[in-house]
């Protein structure tokens, strides 16, 4: 039996072409290969990865293997796998267990397949997105924890989970919070979603955005990107927030900040980007305008009460994959995208390569840090040092033709900042 499970291995050639194009758009990762390809700092690392199996992730996987690591992969979302990318990776011999449209049980099966490597030895590094792999090992396979040198976590939800585990004394391995690298959350959450949210909505519904009232729940990085993208298309955007600082930010950007209850009366498009649960639930769906489009771009599908829709609708029709039209008992219709899961992954192709190169270069650096500097990282949740964060950004400038100004030694002395950085104090918010 081959050590992979993908939808169609024959898609590998197509996937390879996409990967080649993505490589050029991922200068950070390619620089890692040039820089560390010879020294192979990840030799001996057995990395189990659980992160959307896309073309961009394929470039990450091949960077990790180029740096000497053994890698096994699963996707962290049942709909986000690009089958051609998974096939291309499987064909290279990297065990990958992912296909678009897994069931929840298959999703867990896929993750479990990545824990033990071909030689019978279990994983010794975790690369996670969302915390499902981290939780699975802590709860069901604690015997593997002793060999694990560290884990790097990609996203806000997973990071929250890590801090919660830490607080409850349940976290057993050193963790690097990749999400809060400036070059990660301030880039893919913001600029990535700014391009992929509308891409998803448009591919799914072809709806005209100009003039429509759209509600974005949450004005964090993802919410900011989403709100600005919708506004750029001419939509009139309402924001809901619980944090007065973010609410004020939204208001001062010119957005109307209100509650979901108020927004229900006039919005035709609802986007949740909170990372919290129960943002739009039962009675709220009933009050929406006809054919309101509802989608989620926060990590989990619990932002929307999809179960309520399924249990209480009069009829559910699939318009096309990832687009469902519910008829409520009142006769009103709701269009739900990607079953309430990530709309930019379910209905579009996720973040563009370039912005993912920022996040993934952080991932690679985090894996190198945890693998090679074991003594520097105790059990707990760490951030990458600022100098590495700046290194990630620097790796992406040339591709854009950016000319960076150098600090003169005189200026350096005047500011009290080293010529080569780090340029900002830890508390700087960018």
């Amino acid at each position, binding site marked *: *039996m081959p050590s992979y*499970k993908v*939808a*169609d291995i024959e898609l590998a050639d197509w996937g390879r072409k996409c990967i080649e194009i993505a490589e050029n758009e991922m200068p950070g990762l390619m620089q890692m290969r040039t820089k560390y390809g010879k020294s192979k700092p990840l030799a001996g690392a057995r990395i189990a990865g659980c992160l959307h199996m896309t073309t961009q992730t394929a470039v990450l996987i091949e960077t990790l293997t180029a740096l000497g690591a053994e890698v096994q992969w699963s996707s962290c979302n*049942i*709909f986000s796998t690009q089958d051609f990318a998974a096939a291309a990776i499987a064909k290279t011999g990297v065990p990958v267990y992912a*296909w*678009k*449209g*897994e*069931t929840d*049980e*298959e999703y867990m*099966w896929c993750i479990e397949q990545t824990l033990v490597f071909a030689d019978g030895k279990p994983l010794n590094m975790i690369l996670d997105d969302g915390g499902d792999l981290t939780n699975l090992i802590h709860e069901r396979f604690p015997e593997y924890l002793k060999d694990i040198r560290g884990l790097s976590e990609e996203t806000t939800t997973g990071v929250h989970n890590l801090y919660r585990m830490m607080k409850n004394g349940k976290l057993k391995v050193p963790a690097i919070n990749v999400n809060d690298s400036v070059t990660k959350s301030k880039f893919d959450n913001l600029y990535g979603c700014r391009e992929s949210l509308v891409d998803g909505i448009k591919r799914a519904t072809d709806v005209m955005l100009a003039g429509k009232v759209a509600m974005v729940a949450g004005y964090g990085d993802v919410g900011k990107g989403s709100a600005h993208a919708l506004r750029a298309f001419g939509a009139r955007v309402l924001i809901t927030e619980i944090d007065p600082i973010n609410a004020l930010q939204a208001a001062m950007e010119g957005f109307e900040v209100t509650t979901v209850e108020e927004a229900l009366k006039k919005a035709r498009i609802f986007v949740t980007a909170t990372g919290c649960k129960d943002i739009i639930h039962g009675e709220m769906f009933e009050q929406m305008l006809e054919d309101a489009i509802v989608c989620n771009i926060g990590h989990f599908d619990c932002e929307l009460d999809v179960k309520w829709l399924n249990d209480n609708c009069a009829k559910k029709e699939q318009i096309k*994959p990832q687009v469902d039209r519910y008829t409520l008992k009142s006769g009103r219709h709701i269009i739900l995208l990607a079953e309430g899961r990530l709309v930019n992954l379910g209905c579009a192709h996720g973040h563009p390569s370039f912005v993912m190169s920022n996040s993934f270069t952080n991932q690679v650096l985090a894996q190198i840090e945890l693998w090679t500097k074991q003594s520097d990282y105790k059990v707990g949740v760490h951030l990458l040092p600022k100098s590495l964060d700046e290194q990630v950004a620097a790796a992406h400038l040339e591709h854009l033709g950016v000319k960076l100004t150098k600090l003169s030694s005189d200026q350096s002395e005047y500011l009290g900042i080293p010529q080569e950085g780090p340029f900002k104090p830890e508390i700087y918010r960018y």
Partner: protein
Amino acid sequence: MDNPAKTNTMAVQLVESNEAPGGVQLVNSRRTNKQSSPMDLVELASSIQQADEFVKATAGSKLTVIADQIRYLQEQARKALKEAQRDNIIHHAACNMVKKPGTLYYMYERESGQKYMSILSPEDWGSSCPHEFVGAYKLEFDMSWTPIEEMEKRTEQFALIDRLLTSNQKSISDSATVTVLGEEKSEKS
């Protein structure tokens, strides 16, 4: 009382008589048409009866063949409908994936009774299989489903068709070559 001879002529229909066949007046048509023996008619009648039975028997056996064929066709129709129904059920079983012809899919049933299609086999699951396995089906290129039990038969059929097609093509192209060569020869000569 009825004339017995009359009843006989009723039962055995003789060819109408003609007093002037071909325009030549018969001297005495009664004499010419007179039956030599009363037994002639009886014989004629019994031969007709015998022929009737033969026809009945032949028609009967022909009809039996047709009836058999009808029964067979009915059976075929029933089978085709049953297969169509099965294909339909499989096509409409819950599935999160876009199904691809040529691929083997496995059907499971959840506790809720929902049936769904998966690319994971019971062997892939091993002992941790979460739902009851219903069956394995291959999606053919005509969008029909072949149960795994019948897959070997279907593969054999396809192989046979393949062989027939290739040999047919070969004979067609062979004869084409011969004709072309023949024409070339005739042109040359």
